[in-house]
């Protein structure tokens, strides 16, 4: 199998380019979630698909080298972030999972709405990336 793919220059070159486009699209989907279709779940899946494309064009070892993290830990961090945004409402004597927002003037971007719901979505995003990559890597490395 590996021997037959000795000369996959085109696949690898295209993959190097396309991975960045996919990752940018994932970021777009993630931030679009509040007002347009998108959000943490689909953003996480698209990010994972970019990593899977890398794994297909190169191999799992390369993916491990490019993204040197334990994806189980990523899942746990995601869960922690999501739960802690809920717990944060305890500090303000609000019901669990209350979220808030504010309009802020940001450099370059102008006036934007900043919502704590994005942090919850970030947790979802990390959890989805972590779970998907854990599944794919543990099946892929199991020979």
């Amino acid at each position, binding site marked *: 199998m590996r021997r037959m793919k000795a000369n996959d220059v085109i696949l690898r070159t295209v993959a190097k380019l396309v991975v960045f486009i996919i990752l940018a699209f994932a970021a777009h989907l993630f931030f679009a979630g509040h007002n347009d279709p998108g959000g943490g779940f689909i953003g996480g899946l698209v990010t994972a698909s970019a990593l899977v494309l890398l794994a297909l064009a190169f191999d799992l070892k390369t993916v491990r080298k490019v993204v040197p993290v334990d994806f189980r830990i990523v899942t746990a961090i995601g869960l*922690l972030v999501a739960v802690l945004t809920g*717990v944060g409402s305890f500090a303000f004597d609000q*019901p669990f999972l*209350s979220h808030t927002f504010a309009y802020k003037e940001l450099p370059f971007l102008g006036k934007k709405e900043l919502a704590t719901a994005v942090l919850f979505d970030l947790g979802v995003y990390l959890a989805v990336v972590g779970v998907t990559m854990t599944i794919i890597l543990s099946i892929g490395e199991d020979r």
Partner: protein
Amino acid sequence: MNNAVVLPLLIPLLAGVVLVFFSNVRAQRTISALAALLNVAACAYLVQQVRTDGIQTLYMGGWLPPFGIVFVADMLGALLALTSAVVMGACLFYAFRTIGEGRERHHFYALAQFLTVGVIGSFLTGDIFNLFVCFEVMLISSYALIVLGGEKRQLRESIKYILINIVSSILFVASMAYLYAALGTLNMAQLAVRVAETGQGGGLNVVAALLLVVFSLKAGLFLFFWLPGSYGAPPSVVAAMFGGLLTKVGVYAIVRTFTLIFAYDPGFTQPLIEWMSIGAMTLGALGAVAYRDVPRILIYNIVVAVGLIGFGLSAATEAALDGVVFYLLHDMVAKALVFLLGGWLMTLAGTDRSGRMGGLIEKAPALGWMFFATGMAIAGVPPLSGFVGKLLIVQGGLEGGRYIGVAVALATSLLVLLSLTRLFMSAFWGEPKSGEPASVVPSGLLAPCASLLAIVALLGVGAEWVNAYVSLAGEVLARPELYIEAVLKE
């Protein structure tokens, strides 16, 4: 608004997440022990709060029902949460000694914490779709726990277990869809109001029957064909968690659904539940008497208990509902305890066949007498905890004129007693059987078992004191308008 309502769910959730970061076994044990103790304290605080201030509600994110998800701690939910926290704590302390480093390294404790999240979430939620989500949290953790270790038998049984639970989950989602189409809400209190308004006619009865099938599959009420194989596969401490908690969540869901939402056409639902319960009691008792290996005897005893609780629910008098709550509490503790003791017994004897055991009372007197006491409690002998609940259920059945059910309940008590005393006699009396050398039993199993046994004794001896809490829970079951008012107060 009372954030204490969510603490029993939040503590194990945070603990489970944090446990993923640690591969060090000692650190994992410390964290899970701390979380378990903290959770018992949080649940006890919640129970006390419900007793003094009435039903507690928490509107998630500040969205009022029926628009947001509401967490409701009435006395039944709070008591069941407390009992599951206690049972889970005892199982964890037992697991520290028995589960083995291989399983510990592969996230055993994190999975146990997530199982607690699902169980306690199911008891406290006031939204029926959220109940489904909590069911799934619980079930997915239980899939992992049943297969963790990867022995051949575990792999085979987990396929059946996952298959049957996926089918019942699909039915659950389908009945949610029917319910939402018919009534336009998923909040339990508002569902109850809408069912009362439109009347529980033919279409809603179909949904009620569908939900009964779903919950009976989870609880092992008559549809328990998957249960004996699945619960026999994992290590005994996991079987104790399952026997103590998982089936009882199904029972709780039946109790909640048919006292709150579908309580308006008792002529249709009550006979259905009654005959399913009678079937469960009969078949369970026959199974308990028929088998000669420890896991199956104990597993069929679960089915009998679920049948008895179902019968109490179908009788639906105030005494019977008090009995349901009491027996549910007793059964969670006693079933977990009997599985822990059974696991200890099987390790000591080196076999699970009761015929190959003998004379173990010399070797382990504490185990022997604790097993005896637990057997008596499960059968319902007066000073212990099984008595009061069974008495109240029988009283309720007689008040309602359900003589067949009462007769079956009493007869199956005898068969339960027979199955457990016969196991006790063959294992602990007689001459020691030479043959298999006894395995080394890890030390430190006495404390978790003895503390559960103390609770069993306390529930029986202090029945008067416990009844102050149980009657509050029974009152909400008998008068669902209390629940509805507490949730939809405006």
